[in-house]
């Protein structure tokens, strides 16, 4: 029956099936949001056009649009264990966490908080039914500006992470959102979703992890919305290592209030096609963001970081610094736009991307861009499109190190500038291991 459905038909059929499973007394609000989003998805489709499609110029999503991914109606929640998660990504027992398997909330693997320690960390699906107010006010609002990927995620809105730091609260405990794919067949799509609300003058540290099995073909289509209210500070990390046959599209939307600060670092490895889309809106004075990234591609992987920063208010600052390491015949893309609107005087904006290429077959497309409509601003951009590592590798080999040790030391050295700035020891040591096989003898 539905097995023969392809692409878009499959999404529509799964949508109907999901809606049919909702209880009759389910949230009318939720049903409305989903239907509207499905209509938007029908209209927008996946951004696979090859012409005039600036936002996806170097990443062709036709392989995603052409494929058939089934909604995971049946998730074997026991397929993923804590031991597996500890291996796959960063982990600390001190972190509060919500775990989602193929997008489905796992109560067993999660540690929810409902106001204890000043933190609210619950499944969004449950929160919507309980007290929709605050959640409804924000859920899907920032994401409304999104493309077809975001729309179809919203169309299948169900489980997800709600992270709430109340006003004037410092959440000491870092929050870890783990979205793991089971890789079970048939090829499936999951819709990770997170809504993060940092109240006035609150402090919050957040880690998002997207992990999956090394093989298998699946599609992770994630949406995160972060609202940082006046005077708040959000420390954010996004960690992605999907399998080599996986597709990952992440769309994050951030809005920064007056005097708030958002510091985000993303790590991307693996995946046949991976996209890390981040849109930050600074529409209040004195807001600031520091956006860093580190990506490492091998084999025939493709990783695309697309960062949009919208300076819509005056006196805000944004600083982007991304570093990439490319090997094999992989491809990486760094693009995006910093928009400084006419009233955004006294803006500070910097955009920088540095890459090293370890092999002849790897390609980087880097295209930072600044669009400035205000006159009293300080804006910079720079990109080094791919210094070839050959001289460095030869230098190290001429001192006796074999090629593997030389490459490993070099890669770790290049990455360490970003890794060393991580403030969470458990995440830092995980990445240190990931970016280094370590020299023989340690020392």
């Amino acid at each position, binding site marked *: 029956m539905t097995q023969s459905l392809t692409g878009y038909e499959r999404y529509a059929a799964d949508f109907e099936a999901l809606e049919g499973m909702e209880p009759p007394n389910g949230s009318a609000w939720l049903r409305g949001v989903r239907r509207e989003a499905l209509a938007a998805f029908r209209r927008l489709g996946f951004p696979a056009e090859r012409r005039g499609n600036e936002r996806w110029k170097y990443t062709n999503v036709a392989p995603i649009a052409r494929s058939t991914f089934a909604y995971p109606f049946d998730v074997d929640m026991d397929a993923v264990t804590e031991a597996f998660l500890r291996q796959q990504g960063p982990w600390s027992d001190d972190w509060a966490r919500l775990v989602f398997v193929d997008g489905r909330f796992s109560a067993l693997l999660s540690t929810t908080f409902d106001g204890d320690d000043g933190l609210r960390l619950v499944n969004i699906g449950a929160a919507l039914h309980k007290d929709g107010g605050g959640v409804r006010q924000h859920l899907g609002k920032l994401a409304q500006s999104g493309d077809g990927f975001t729309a179809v995620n919203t169309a299948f809105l169900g489980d997800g992470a709600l992270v709430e730091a109340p006003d004037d609260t410092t959440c000491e405990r870092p929050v870890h959102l783990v979205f793991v794919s089971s890789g079970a067949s048939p090829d499936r799509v999951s819709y990770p979703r997170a809504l993060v609300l940092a109240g006035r003058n609150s402090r919050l540290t957040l880690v998002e992890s997207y992990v999956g099995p090394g093989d298998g073909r699946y599609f992770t289509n994630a949406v995160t919305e972060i609202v940082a209210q006046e005077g708040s500070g959000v420390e954010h990390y996004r960690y992605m290592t999907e399998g080599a046959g996986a597709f990952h599209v992440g769309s994050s939307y951030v809005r920064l209030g007056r005097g708030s600060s958002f510091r985000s670092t993303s790590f991307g490895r693996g995946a046949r096609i991976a996209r890390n889309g981040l849109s930050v809106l600074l529409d209040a004075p004195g807001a600031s963001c520091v956006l860093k990234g580190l990506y490492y591609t091998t084999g025939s992987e493709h990783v695309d970081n697309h960062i949009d920063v919208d300076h819509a208010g005056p006196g805000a600052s944004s600083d982007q610094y991304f570093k990439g390491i490319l090997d094999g015949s992989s491809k990486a893309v760094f693009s995006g736009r910093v928009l400084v609107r006419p009233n955004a005087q006294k803006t500070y904006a910097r955009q920088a991307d540095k890459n090293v290429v370890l092999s002849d077959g790897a390609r980087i497309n880097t295209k930072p861009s600044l669009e400035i409509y205000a006159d009293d601003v300080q804006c910079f951009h720079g990109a080094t499109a791919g210094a070839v590592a050959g001289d460095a590798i030869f*230098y*190290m080999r001429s*001192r006796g190190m074999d090629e593997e040790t030389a490459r490993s030391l070099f890669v770790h050295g290049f990455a360490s500038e970003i890794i060393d700035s991580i403030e969470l020891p458990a995440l830092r040591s995980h990445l240190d291991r990931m970016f280094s096989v370590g020299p023989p003898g*340690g020392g």
Partner: protein
Amino acid sequence: MLEIHNLRVSVEDTEILRGVSLAVGEGEVHAVMGPNGSGKSTLANVIAGRPGYEVTGGDVLYDGQSLLEVMPDERARRGIFLAFQYPVELPGVRNRQFLKSALDAVRVYQGREELSAREFDKLLREKVRETGLDPDLVKRSVNEGFSGGEKKRSEMLQMAVLDPRLALLDETDSGLDIDALRLVAAGVNRRRSPDRAIVLVTHYQRILSFVVPDFVHVLLDGRIVQSGGRELALELEEKGYEWLRDGATAGDR
């Protein structure tokens, strides 16, 4: 120790070395001199195994075995060291880790044990003192943000730690002030011993006042046109290279 036979080398189809022969024995210090573009650096780099050079004829023997098919890391482990004319910056790679990884690789190849962290640190302290390098630089990333002179001294530190049998110094003296030059020269002189050899590749005679070579060779247009003792360097200082070029051209005809 090192025998070069009629070596011909091209870079991107341009012939740089056009039949170079040279023999370096244990305990000897040789200076290879010549103007810019004569092929000096090419010679040093080919011996170290740098990619991008095509050997079109001849051979390079080390301890009687051809080096040409040997990987650069194995050449280093067998005791060959090239001090780079332009040492490479390695952001984020700490000097200590770099040096320990290198020394471990060399020692293991030579059938010796890796040094413990404590033994290594002791050795490193000693060599840093000898080299006259600022100990704070050693804590930083390899060559990153170093001045030209610091980079050259850092090369000397690497040489001292790795203790090679054959050291090739590619214009290590260029760009150094007199104090730095003395330090570098002292480091080279410390290495003189009956079982080691040193090849200094240089444009100027200057360093040869501090490191007195046993043999001096003049490389011009890819050929060694003259060999002699220390006095040849002094003669070059006085007369330049042009008189030899005339001689070389005449000899060709």
